[in-house]
Structure formats: C-alpha cells, structure tokens
C-alpha cells in the first residue's frame, strides 16, 4: 500500500498512510440546500486510486480538519472520485465554502466494500436510502448499472425530508429511472406543492410496496430509519443475512489504529463500514 | 478517626433504613488501605464497605451535581459525606445552582487531616501492604513487602490539609465530629510569596520546570468542583484553544493560567487539583495566587463560605485598582 513520497520533503521516504496525496476539486454541484457533490481528481489527471463500491476516503482541507466520506462515484469512473457531502460540521462547512480548483488532500480507499462481485452477483437488489444515505449506495447502483447483466432486478427506494432534499434527483430521473429492469420509488416526508409522488416515511412506504424477500437489501440512512427499515424487512420475511448496511463512526486514522471507531472488536474503518445485518447483531449496541 | 467511622456507617444505615435517604455518596474501601474510592452506596448492606480513614481526601461535592438530580419519578434523597473543607465547594456549587439542595442530606464528618500516599512513598516506603493509624493519633505504621516503619502524620499530609482551612462545616444537616475548630493551619500564602519573591527569570524557570511535566490528562479540571461547565472551552473545537498536545511550549502554561482564571473567585482552595495531578505539579499555587490577589485588591473573600455570595469577578467598585498597578507601566 505504500508509495514513495513525492513532495519536496524527504526524497525516497516511504510515505506514511496518514499523509494524504494532493488532489484538486474540479467540479462542485449543488444537490440540495445542504448537500454538494465534489468531483476530485489528481492534479495531473492520473487515477488517484482504485476503489470498490462502499469504500471511503479521507478528505482534508488543512485548517479545517480531515474526515471520512463515502465515495459516491462508480469504480468504473477511473478519472475522478465524487463525494456527496452534507453540511453538518466544521470540515463540511469549510468544504461547502470552497470553489472549484481548490487543492485538497485525499487518502484512501478505506474499509471493506459491498460484496458486489461475490454475494451480490446474480441477485435481485433492493436499495433503500434516506437523505444523504444515498451517497454510499450511489456507487453500488452505478456499478450495478455498468455491469447490468450480472445482476437481477433492481429496486431503488429513496426518501428525503422534501423534494428539494432528494440528492441527485436529476440523475435519478433521467438515468436510473430509464435503466432496464429497474424501478425507482421516491418519497418525501411531508406533502408539498408541486410534488405528485409518494408522501410518507421510507419504512412505511417500504411496507406498502411489499417487496418479496427474494432479493438482497442494501440500506443506508439516518440510524432511526435504518432501525425501522430493518424491522419492516424482517416482518416482510427477509432474513438478516439478506440485508446489508453501512455504518459511520468518528474516525481519525482510517487504518484501525487510532482506536475510536470500534464497535466491540470490530473497527468500522477497517472491518466495516459495510456490515451484513446478522453481523451487527453480534456487536455491542454502541453505534 | 476510626471511632467516628463506625458512627458514620451506623448512622448512614439508620437513615437509609428509615427512608430519610435512598443513596449514600461516600468512600469505599479499595484493594489497599489507602485507595479509598468515591462510591454511591445504594443498599444498606453495601454500606459495610464504607470507610472513613486518613485516605479519604477526595472531595465528594462535585459528585452531587450528577447525583442530586432526579432522573426517575422516585423521590431522591442522597446522603453525602462532607469534610469541613468540602462544604465550601458544596456551597459554591449551590451558589452556581449546580446542586439540587433539597435532594441532598449532608452528613458533615469531622476530619483530622488526610494523608498523601505519594508522600509516604517519598519517605522511602515501597511495596506498601498495610497502613495503620497508631493510638497516639500522630503516627502511622506502614507495613511493606520490605519491612515495616513509621511515619509522622504531619509529615505526610495532603497539601490541602497541611494548610487546613479549619474544622468548621459551613453547611450540613447533621454532624458527626469530634473536632474542635482551631481555625486555619499554617500560612497558605507562604508558597505564593516565595514565588513572588523570586526574580522574573527564576519565576519563569520554576513554572517552566513544573508545567513542562504536564501531560494534559485533565485530571485537575475534571476533579475540580469549580470546573463544572457542561462543555469546557478546552474541549470546544471552535474555541481555538482545544488542543490535546503536550508540546513543552506555551500550551501547558496557557491551559493552566486559563483554567485557574476560569475558577478565580470561585475556587474554594479545596486542593483537589494538586492532589490528583499525576505529575505532582503544585497547581494550588495558581489558585492561591488568584485568591491572594483578590484578597489584596478587593478585600478578603472566601468562596463557599456561604451559599449565594456574589463573587469578586462578577462585581466591581468604582474605586478598584487599575491594572496599571500590576502591569507596572513605569519601569521594568
């Protein structure tokens, strides 16, 4: 995993895993009032690193800190990485204030990806996302689209507070909805003018839609949503081994050494962030 | 002190039995004679583990922030054991509305001075397996893996007891004490004056030596009954001074100056900061400097003397001295 340091600092030295590489934010798209998507590339346009869906990377804006974000873009897009980031803290505030062209630090990829090339192969897939929880699933969905024939039927259920808070709506409507053998269901929490789609919380809509438990479910969203979605899935006859989710805890190193993102003996940064729900049952309830 | 220990236990049991209190915050016997641990006793039987000996220096007032607030519907009445000096801290916390007084039953306990295990170790005792107070009340027998010996209690007192404020409880519901108040012991500002008498260079060297030992463990802050902020400025990323570093530079000085400043006028000189410091930094010398200055500049003031006092940093008079008097704008 190591590479030589390219900076002017210590010629030939093996760069430490904690030292980021230089990257440029080439494009910033405003998705919702508090979510922006950042496209990150290496300064010379060469690939930054390879990743698999569900993996994360540490982004640094020096002076404002460093944090772990899900890589939203598909691994098949080699030239760039995208991150959909909700504004909610010190670093994300600062990121939301930058302009395209800003150089930042990036290191990764970190964590265990979704088993897209193994367990997911040939399966029908049900994606359930809430709010910014779409970000980690985005990469999986695009990867599945890029290898469409390797997977079965695809259902995507996505909900948010309001229509304006649906991340990446344009792509969902123009691309995902037109993808073959794919159904997309959108919902918002409360009725609003100009919205003729479904209104209601994700877990309730999920029950209404009554999916058959013949697929693998992949969930991400606020903890409370995950909890109720999981309950609903069990009621619908799903087994926990059919359900995957991705967790998030505070991280500093990304390599299982700084000691803070553990749930029991597992480190979210290294052994996660993707967990199968039956694996989570064996962990202490501390996430 | 053994005498009143038995009285304390039986009285606490009685109060729990008759329903006056449903919890007791006291000290619990540990692995060794000297490691008494602050503890919340919830049953009458558990009170057999309560101890009151020469090593119960921990000030229990701060625990009453957490323990005096009822969380369930059950009525809460917590008995707390307070030594005379601890009652100052309790009063100060009452002044700051951090304790629900009506949920607390204060059993004031007499105190003849607490001993510092580190000072006993400094006397050459290693591998201490037992400590007993001798009948004369002035010496301790120390049993160790390498032989036994005696120490004079006065030589191994915790700093706060060396400069005891007096044996009078400032607040209590009931008292178990054999002591008569003899007033304060020793000159607690002597240490401050020693430093003031040094040259600026010597003062700087003294504090640099002491504070460069600091490991930023925050024990002083977390033990301090005056440090009761819900979120400390040093934990607040937005404050610009939240840093865990031990850089052997200015940070430790800044941390300790600011911490002492934040408790200036509220610090009761309970001495917990110095007692808990794993590096033995004499942190009380910061607090006593502020207390001494406050007394000199604005008149004698003892935080925690009584509940409801208005502290010196939240009041003023028109004739206060000018900062110029201390910043000395005239010469060096």
């Amino acid at each position, binding site marked *: 995993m190591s590479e030589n340091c390219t900076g002017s600092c210590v010629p030939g030295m093996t760069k430490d895993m904690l030292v980021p590489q230089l990257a440029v934010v080439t494009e910033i798209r405003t998705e919702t009032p508090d979510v922006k998507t950042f496209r990150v590339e290496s300064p010379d346009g060469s690939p930054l690193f390879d990743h698999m869906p569900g993996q994360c990377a540490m982004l640094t804006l020096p002076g404002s800190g460093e944090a772990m974000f899900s890589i939203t873009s598909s691994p098949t897009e080699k030239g760039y990485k995208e991150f959909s980031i909700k504004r909610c803290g010190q670093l994300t505030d600062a990121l939301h204030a930058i302009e395209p062209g800003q150089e930042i630090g990036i290191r990764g990829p970190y964590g265990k990806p979704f088993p897209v090339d193994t367990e997911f192969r040939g399966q029908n897939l049900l994606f359930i996302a809430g709010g910014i929880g779409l970000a980690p699933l985005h990469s999986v969905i695009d990867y599945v689209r890029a290898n469409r024939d390797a997977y079965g039927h695809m259902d995507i259920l996505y909900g948010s507070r309001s229509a304006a808070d649906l991340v990446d709506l344009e792509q969902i409507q123009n691309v995902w909805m037109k993808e073959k053998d794919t159904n997309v269901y959108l919902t918002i929490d409360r009725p609003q003018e100009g919205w003729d789609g479904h209104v209601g919380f994700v877990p309730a809509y999920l029950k209404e839609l009554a999916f058959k438990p013949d697929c693998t479910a992949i969930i991400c969203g606020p903890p409370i949503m995950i909890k109720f979605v999981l309950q609903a899935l069990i009621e619908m006859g799903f087994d926990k081994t059919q359900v995957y989710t991705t967790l998030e805890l505070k991280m500093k190193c990304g390599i299982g050494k700084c000691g803070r993102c553990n749930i029991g003996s597992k480190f979210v940064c290294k052994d996660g962030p993707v967990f199968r729900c039956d694996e989570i049952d064996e962990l202490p309830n501390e996430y | 002190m053994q005498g009143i220990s038995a009285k304390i236990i039986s009285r606490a049991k009685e109060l729990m039995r008759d329903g006056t209190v449903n919890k007791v915050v006291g000290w619990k016997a540990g692995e060794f004679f000297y490691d008494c641990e602050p503890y919340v006793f919830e049953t009458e039987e558990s009170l057999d583990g309560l101890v009151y000996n020469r090593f119960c220096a921990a000030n229990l007032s701060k625990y009453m922030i957490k323990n005096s607030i009822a969380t369930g519907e059950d009525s809460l009445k917590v008995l707390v054991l307070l030594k005379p000096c601890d009652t100052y801290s309790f009063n100060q916390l009452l002044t700051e509305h951090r304790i629900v007084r009506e949920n607390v039953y204060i059993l004031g306990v007499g105190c003849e001075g607490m001993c510092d295990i580190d000072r006993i170790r400094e006397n050459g005792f290693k591998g201490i397996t037992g400590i007993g107070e001798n009948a004369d009340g002035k010496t301790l027998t120390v049993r160790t893996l390498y032989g036994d010996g005696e120490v004079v209690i006065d030589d191994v007192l915790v700093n706060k007891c060396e400069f005891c404020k007096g044996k009078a409880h400032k607040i209590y519901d009931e008292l178990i004490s054999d002591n008569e108040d003899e007033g304060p012991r020793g000159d607690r500002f002597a240490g401050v004056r020693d430093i003031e008498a040094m040259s*600026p260079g010597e003062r700087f060297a003294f*504090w640099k030596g002491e504070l460069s030992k600091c490991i930023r463990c925050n024990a002083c802050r977390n033990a301090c009954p005056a440090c009761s902020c819900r979120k400390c400025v040093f934990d607040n990323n937005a404050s610009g001074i939240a840093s865990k570093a031990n850089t052997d*530079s200015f940070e430790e000085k800044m941390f300790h100056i600011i911490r002492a400043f934040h408790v200036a006028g509220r610090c009761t000189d309970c001495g917990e900061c110095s007692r808990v410091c794993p590096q033995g930094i004499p942190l009380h010398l910061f607090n006593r400097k*502020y207390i001494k200055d406050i007394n000199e500049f604005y008149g004698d003031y003892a935080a925690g003397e009584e509940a409801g006092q208005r502290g010196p940093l939240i009041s003023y008079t028109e004739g206060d001295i000018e900062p110029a008097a201390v910043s000395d704008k005239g010469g060096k």
Partner: protein
Amino acid sequence: MPVNEQKEWKPKIVAFCCNWCSYAGADLAGSSRLSYPADVKIIRVPCSCRVNPIFILKAFERGADGVIICGCHPGDCHYSTGNYYTRRRMALLFSMLDYIGVERGRTRVEWVSAAEGARFSQVMNDFAKKISELGENVKVGDLRCRE
C-alpha cells in the same frame, strides 16, 4: 525549509480597542495625521470587556510581543459597566502573567475616549517604545509559530 532570514526585529503589538471609544480615538488620530507605530495591529471589540484572557494569551502564543487593551474611561462605558469588569479581570490576569515570569510591561490597559486622538497616538508610541526596550517576547509563545 527557508534559511533563517536575519530581519531586523520590530515589536509586534496587538491592541484590542473598544468600538465606542478607543477605536474611534484611533480613527481620530489617523484623521488628525498623528502617527503611531505601524506594527500595532488593532482588533476592534464591542467593549473592552469582550476581551477574554484567552485572546491575550493567544496573541502572545502566536508571536505578539505586547498586548494592550483600550477601553472607555471608567464610568463612560457604552454598556454602563463593562470596563469595570475589564479592570478587575485584567488586574488579576496581568498579576498572574507577572507571577509566571513574563516581563511586566508586555501587557497594559489604557482608557482612551473617542475624543482623545492625540492621547491614542501617544499611548501607542509609548507602549511601542516600552516593548522595544523589553525586546522580543521569548517566554510566552509557541515555538511552532516562531520557526
């Protein structure tokens, strides 16, 4: 890493000025063409009482050689009593700085009204002169900021 540039040392002074008096005093000094040292960095605060001791220590930490706080004369505070609290706080803080061995004179409080442009300039010149005499602040300050 840049080789040490041997520059001539000039005192770096941070002046916290109350918006209602000394900041206006500084303005007046400027418009009256009264000079004060260019190395005085003025930070406007709504009241001298806004100056948290952390600000002062932080200024030293980041390399200031002297810190001065200017407020309304006692009794003239825009908020009635702010500067009375400043007076108490700073007396205690300055005494503490002296206690840890920082040279007296690196900190100062002055009361300068909006009408006292001349006094503002004189106070700053005087303070800068004092700091020049004391020399560079090597005791309080973070080594990382000085490299």
